[in-house]
C-alpha cells in the first residue's frame, strides 16, 4: 500500500527535467501545455484536511472570504492525492495526523522535487501530546512546518496562509528558472551532439574525398608513367629510323627526300620534347619539394657551366654579386633558373648576341623575401601577354622562328609557387625582358 503511494509520488510530482524535448510532435506538446495550465489552476490552492468536518469547512470559509482558493480533503489519503495534483500550502489539524495514513503523507512530502518545499501549517491544541509526531512531520517537510496553537484568531490563520503561499510562489519561480535552465542545457546538449555528428560527418567526408583524390592522383601518375613509357617508344623508332635512313642511304637521297626525313625527325623531336616537358611539369606539380637553404650563386654557376644551350660563345651572362641564400628546393630552382636563362638566350633577334644580367634585391623591408631579376636584350613581350606566357602551352611566336613547347614558363611559375614564391615579368617589345622571381630567404 505504502509502496503504491511512493510510486505515485515519483510520477505525480512535476519534475523540472520533464521539459519538452524539441522536435516532439505538436500533439504531445499541446497535451503537456494543457496539463501545465490545469496545474497552475491548482498551484495556488490551500489543501485542507481535518477529521472534524466542521473544522475543515470553517477554515475553508475564512480563507475563501479572503479570495484564497481551497481544496478540502476527507482523510489524509485524499490529502496526499491533492498534493500531487498541485497545491500552494497544506493546512492540517493535529487530529488529522492521528490517521494511520500519515506515513503515506510523509512519503509524498519526502518525494518532493528539489525546488519544492510545500509549506505545511498545523493547528495544535497545545501541550506535549503530539510533539514527536509533529517534529517528524517537520523533518520530512524540510522545516517548512508552522505550528499554530488553537484557539487562534481568523486574522492569524489568514496571515500565516498568505505567508505560506508567498513562499510557495517563490518556489514556483525557482521551478521556472530550473525549467529554463534544463531546457537550455538540453538545447546545449542537443547542439553539442549535432556538432559532434557534423564533425564526424565532415571527417568521414574528408576521408572519403581524400581517398578518392588519392585514387585519381594514382591514376594520373600511372597515366604519366604510361606516357613516358609507351608514347615515347614509337617516337624513338621514328627518330631512330630517320637517323639510320640518313646514315645508311643519305648519299643516295636527293635533297627533297632529305628534307622530308629531316622534317619527320624534327617533328618527332618536338613531340618528344613536349612529352618530356609535360612530365617535368607534372613532377613539379605533384612531386615532393622539400625546402632548405640554397646558395643561389653556386646553383646559377653550375647551370651556366653545364647546360648545353648556354654554351654558345656569343652568350654573355653577368651575375651581380653577392646573390643571397634562399629557402628553396635544388631541383625545382634549377628548373626555374635554367628555363629563364634558356628563354633569355633563345628569344633574341638572330644577329644579336644574347646579354643577360642577374641581380637580386630585398623584396620586403624585413628582408624575409628577395627578388631575383633576369634582364635580357631579347625581343621582349607585349605587356598584354605578360600574364599569358606563364600558362601551359602558351606560345607568342611562330614555331619556325623560335622552337618551344610552351611549357617552360608554366614549369617556372609552378615550381616557384610550390616554394612559396612568385614570378612575373616587365617588358617592352624590342627592349628586352626583365623576369623576376621572388623567394623566401628563411
Amino acid at each position, binding site marked *: 500500500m505504502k509502496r503504491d503511494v511512493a510510486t505515485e509520488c515519483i510520477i505525480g510530482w512535476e519534475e523540472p527535467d520533464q521539459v519538452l524535448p524539441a522536435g516532439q510532435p505538436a500533439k504531445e506538446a499541446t497535451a503537456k501545455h494543457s496539463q501545465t495550465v490545469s496545474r497552475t489552476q491548482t498551484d495556488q490552492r490551500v489543501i485542507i484536511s481535518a477529521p472534524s468536518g466542521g473544522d475543515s469547512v470553517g477554515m475553508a470559509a475564512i480563507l475563501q472570504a479572503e479570495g484564497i482558493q481551497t481544496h478540502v480533503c476527507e482523510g489524509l489519503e485524499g490529502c496526499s492525492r491533492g498534493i500531487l495534483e498541485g497545491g500552494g500550502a497544506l493546512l492540517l489539524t493535529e487530529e488529522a495526523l492521528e490517521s494511520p495514513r500519515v506515513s503515506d503523507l510523509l512519503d509524498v512530502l519526502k518525494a518532493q522535487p528539489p525546488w519544492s518545499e510545500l509549506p505545511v501549517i498545523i493547528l495544535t491544541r497545545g501541550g506535549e501530546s503530539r510533539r514527536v509526531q509533529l517534529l517528524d512531520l517537520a523533518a520530512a517537510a524540510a522545516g517548512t512546518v508552522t505550528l499554530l496553537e488553537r484557539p487562534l484568531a481568523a486574522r492569524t490563520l489568514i496571515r500565516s496562509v498568505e505567508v505560506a503561499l508567498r513562499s510557495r510562489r517563490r518556489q514556483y519561480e525557482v521551478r521556472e528558472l530550473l525549467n529554463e535552465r534544463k531546457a537550455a542545457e538540453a538545447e546545449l546538449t542537443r547542439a553539442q551532439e549535432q556538432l559532434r555528428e557534423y564533425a564526424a560527418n565532415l571527417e568521414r567526408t574528408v576521408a572519403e574525398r581524400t581517398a578518392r583524390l588519392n585514387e585519381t592522383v594514382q591514376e594520373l601518375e600511372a597515366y604519366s608513367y604510361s606516357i*613516358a*613509357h609507351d608514347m615515347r*617508344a*614509337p*617516337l624513338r623508332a621514328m627518330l*631512330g629510323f630517320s637517323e639510320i635512313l640518313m646514315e645508311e642511304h643519305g648519299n643516295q637521297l636527293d635533297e627533297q627526300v632529305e628534307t622530308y626525313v629531316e622534317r619527320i625527325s624534327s617533328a618527332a623531336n618536338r613531340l*618528344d620534347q613536349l612529352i618530356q616537358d609535360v612530365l617535368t611539369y607534372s613532377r613539379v606539380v605533384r612531386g615532393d619539394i622539400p625546402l632548405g637553404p640554397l646558395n643561389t650563386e653556386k646553383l646559377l654557376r653550375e647551370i651556366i657551366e653545364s647546360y648545353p644551350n648556354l654554351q654558345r660563345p656569343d652568350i654573355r651572362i653577368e651575375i651581380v654579386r653577392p646573390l643571397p641564400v634562399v629557402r628553396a628546393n635544388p631541383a625545382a630552382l634549377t628548373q626555374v633558373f635554367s628555363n629563364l636563362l634558356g628563354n633569355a638566350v633563345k628569344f633574341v633577334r638572330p644577329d644579336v648576341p644574347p646579354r643577360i644580367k642577374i641581380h637580386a634585391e630585398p623584396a620586403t623591408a624585413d628582408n624575409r623575401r628577395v627578388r631575383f631579376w633576369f634582364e635580357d636584350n631579347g625581343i621582349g613581350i607585349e605587356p598584354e601577354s605578360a600574364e599569358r606566357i606563364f600558362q601551359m602551352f602558351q606560345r607568342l611566336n611562330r614555331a619556325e622562328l623560335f622552337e618551344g613547347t610552351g611549357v617552360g614558363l608554366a614549369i617556372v611559375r609552378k615550381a616557384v609557387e610550390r616554394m612559396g614564391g612568385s614570378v612575373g615579368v616587365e617588358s617592352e617589345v624590342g627592349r628586352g625582358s626583365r623576369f623576376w622571381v621572388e623567394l623566401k630567404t628563411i
Partner: protein
Amino acid sequence: MNAPLILLAEDDTNDVYFFKRAVDKLAIPNRVHVARDGKEAVAYLNGEGEFADRERHPLPGLIVLDLNMPRQNGFEILKWLQQSPPLDQLPAVILTSSQAQRDVQQALELGAKQYYVKPSSPGKLPELLKEMMTYCR
C-alpha cells in the same frame, strides 16, 4: 671458346632492331638471344622446353632487361633471379625508357648491376652497349 651470349628481354621490335644494330656497329663477337617478354626470358634461363639444350642455348654472360614488358616485367625477373641460385650470379642490367627515380632505385635494390635509359637516338646505343659489356662475364 665462344664469346658469352647476351640475353635481351625486350618486347619492342624496333628497340630489338636498334640493339642488334648496335652489336653489329660495335663488332663484338657475342650472340644475342631475344626473349620477347618476361616469361620467355625466365623459360630460357630455366632451360625449359626447347631451351633445355644448353649447347644451343647456353646461359648468358649478360642479361639486358626492359622494365615494361607483357606477362612478366623486368622487376619480376630480377626478383626471380635473386631467388634462383645459382642464376642470381648472372649479371643483369636494365635498358628502359623509364626515367623515374623510383624505378632506378627499385631496380638497383633488386640486384641490377646498372640502369640505362634508352637513348632517343640509336646512334648513341653502341656507346651504351660498350659500357654494358663491362658487366659481361
